[in-house]
């Protein structure tokens, strides 16, 4: 007897528990939409914009999860590399799509190096990848500030005075990215039912999705999935566990760099010292809202997550204002909910693991009860 019998109610409860986060957000959004009074058209437009802006970054998280390295806050490193690429691009005055491509080219080696370093460190901290990558993010932020705030303009030549602080070195707080603002989004956009859809950006995201699906089917992808499930079994089969883990982080970091460039071309300005700081947290929170867990995430989770998470941000300020006359609620919600959802997801992950463990006991009890019935 190895099949645990469950009543319909228990099964239903199991499904609810397994999808608690998306269900909770679905309910919040459903209550919030009528309260906010926004039209469907407006909300649809907003969601399309957010999907185009954020999806690339979130998809970058999928590969380390596949390799069993959990939610990788190391994507902050890629975001910084992307920003450095954008600063040089703005300085050299390359505009439009070529500018974006140049920024990506510059960011790639920086991302790869940072990712490799991060991967090396994470290999020393197996099982504690999440908190370790979080702290590495803070550490590298210091290095980034050193380079951007003191190095650029002093050691690294920056010729465009609009970028440099009045004191003569260091990059200004905001870098205007007007030269690439929405170049990808507007490259080819069509209107459907009054909603403007940035086809070119969506195409890039689609290609990335296809890449992820294709990647899962490669030998390397298979190795990553194996490593993600059980490092010891993978090692015993001759898979190079450490190397595979490093590669997964490098890929993720490089993709995060590109994702940051796509994200900032939509926004149009770079907050030199802030843009990258919370991007990791918001991306991870969005992915979790979409129903991903620490060890399992799919492309579907990405899109569901972006939609629900951002829908909540769109409706909550007005909903808050209409409800209690306080628009600040939205901004407060943003941070509170992000940390909250990450915490809940981590707790649920642990709860689920315990429940899996308890299954063994329930099986034994069931088997014993069956034997007793047979005997009487």
């Amino acid at each position, binding site marked *: 007897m190895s099949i645990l019998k469950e009543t319909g109610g228990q099964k239903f409860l199991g499904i609810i528990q397994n999808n608690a986060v998306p269900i909770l957000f679905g309910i919040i959004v459903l209550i919030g939409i009528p309260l906010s009074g926004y039209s469907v058209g407006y909300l649809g437009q907003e969601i399309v914009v957010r999907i185009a802006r954020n999806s690339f970054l979130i998809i970058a998280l999928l590969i380390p999860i596949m390799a069993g390295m959990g939610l990788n806050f190391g994507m902050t490193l890629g975001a910084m590399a992307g920003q450095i690429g954008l600063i040089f691009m703005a300085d050299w005055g390359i505009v439009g799509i070529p500018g974006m491509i140049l920024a990506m080219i510059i960011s790639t080696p920086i991302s790869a190096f940072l990712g490799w370093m991060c991967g090396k460190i994470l290999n020393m901290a197996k099982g504690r990848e999440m908190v370790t990558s979080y702290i590495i993010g803070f550490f590298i932020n210091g290095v980034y500030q050193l380079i951007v705030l003191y190095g650029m303009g002093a050691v690294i030549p920056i010729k465009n005075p609009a970028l440099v602080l009045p004191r003569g070195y260091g990059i200004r707080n905001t870098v205007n990215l007007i030269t690439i603002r929405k170049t990808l989004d507007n490259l080819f956009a069509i209107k459907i039912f009054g909603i403007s859809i940035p086809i070119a950006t969506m195409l890039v995201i689609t290609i990335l999705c296809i890449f992820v699906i294709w990647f899962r*089917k490669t030998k390397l992808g298979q*190795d990553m999935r194996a490593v993600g499930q059980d490092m010891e*079994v*993978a090692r015993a*089969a001759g898979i190079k566990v450490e190397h595979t883990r490093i590669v997964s982080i490098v890929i993720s970091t490089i993709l995060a760099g590109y994702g940051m460039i796509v994200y900032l071309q939509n926004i149009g300005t770079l907050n030199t010292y802030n843009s990258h700081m919370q991007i990791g947290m918001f991306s991870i929170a969005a992915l979790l809202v979409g129903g991903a867990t620490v060890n399992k995430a799919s492309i579907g989770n990405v899109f569901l997550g972006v939609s629900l998470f951002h829908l909540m941000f769109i409706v909550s300020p007005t909903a808050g204002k209409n409800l209690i006359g306080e628009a600040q609620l939205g901004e407060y919600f943003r941070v509170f909910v992000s940390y909250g959802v990450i915490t809940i997801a981590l707790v649920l992950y642990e709860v689920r693991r315990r429940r899996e463990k308890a299954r*063994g006991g329930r099986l034994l009890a069931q088997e014993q009860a069956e034997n007793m019935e047979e005997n009487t």
Partner: protein
Amino acid sequence: MAYQGPPVLELRNICKEYFGNQVLTDVSLSLHKGEILGLVGENGAGKSTLMNILFGMDVIQRTGGYSGEMLIEGKLVKYQSSFDAIADGIGMVHQEFSLLPDFSATENILLNREPHKRSFASEVFGERLDLLDRKSMVEKARIAISKLGVSIDSAMIVGSMPVGHKQFTEIARELSKDSIRILVLDEPTAVLTEQEASILLEAIKNLAAEGIAIIFISHRLQEVIDVCDTVVVMRDGKVVRTESSKDLTIAQIARWMVGREVTQHADRRQFDYDNTPTVLSIRNLWVDMPGETVRDVSLDIHKGEILGIGGLAGQGKLGVPNGAMGLFPAGGTIIFEGKRLPLNQPRAFLDAGMAFVSEDRRGVGLLLDESLDWNISFAAMQVNNKYLKRYLNGLLMWRDEKEIQKVALEYINALEIKCTSYKQKAKELSGGNQQKICLAKAFALSPRLLFVSEPTRGIDIGAKSLVLQALRDYNEKSGTTIVMISSELEELRAICDRIAIVADGRITGILPSDSPSEDFGLLMVAGQPMSMEEHA
């Protein structure tokens, strides 16, 4: 049976020492193409060590290698790692599954040996970006499974398979290697139902008929007799018998396994069961302890006795005390001194007046980085509020260092614990002395019932008898009931009044400790399908 040509595998005078402990002495055996060799023996007989040597496991090199010769098809080999052994066509199916739960059977069978085809990216980035060739993967897996003669859905996710299919998948993985010549199966039927086991045994015979040499390790002796050509019995690191399986009986093999003729223990006592009350009564206990599952155990323990619980490793004897204390999920009823004990609450177990000396000395038993006096006193301090100074009517409690030191010195002297002082750290002591600290800690709780699990595991012979004597003395002086769990039948027989044997998670019998060892041997392998004559 006569075999052609040189043996596929020959071991000559293999000896192995672990830290001065001789675990294998002059082991020689030979295995021919198509032969099934049954390897049986009690725990610690040296079977696993021998297989580790054969498979080139790291642990052998790390502990100083082995002496003797190993020949594969007449060629002398010395493996540096298990990958060398795999390359030479040796396949091993371990007792624990090493399968990936989220992969399908196919993916598991071909793990890291997947056929792949080139793709545009692999031209640039190398062959790790080759696409997996799913079609030929399925085909290869199918061939491997069909060699076994069973039907498994190769697309099924391993995590949702019944255990029997997992076992088949694991074997199929070895079979999918083209070079496979020798297959080692370590307790392959332990987790299987009777029906699954008979399918597997049939499959093993088929494999042998195809020319694969098989080493079959099992505690189920009837299976060994049924399926094997040759039976090798090991005991205490030596091969004691190599026999053709024809005309062997379970009783014979069980006797060889347990071996040692009954030595009379001079100080045996007659325990008066009729006039002593039951102190602990266990009813329908189940315990979900990984690798030591307990099923439906009922047991009555009398006040003042020493009860032994024996059995082979992995059969569930360790699960009984661990479940009773609540260290692993458990269910059923436990009544101690007439009161029902809440399960899964270690504190309730301790408060009721029981104590447990765990087999996991370093993990559960000791605070390795703390001093001996702390180790001895901390449990009693927590549970009994002993060794504390009270202020303000007990609102404020302070450690009573003097009392702690006094009691530590007492036990250090009484148990002859070798240490520089009571301030020495627990991790610096030898295994035997660490065990005595664990006992002292339990004694300090002054329990009315004491569970002691594997008290002599990993300690040398001299220390063993001291530990056993300490238990016996404690039982006699304080009248504490002791339940001792051990894999070594001899040491159970040395101090216990009765011995219960656990097999397959159930108690198969309780005998007085002076019963012949053969009877115990039979109980250990009981609960298994036996042939008709044996029953009669």
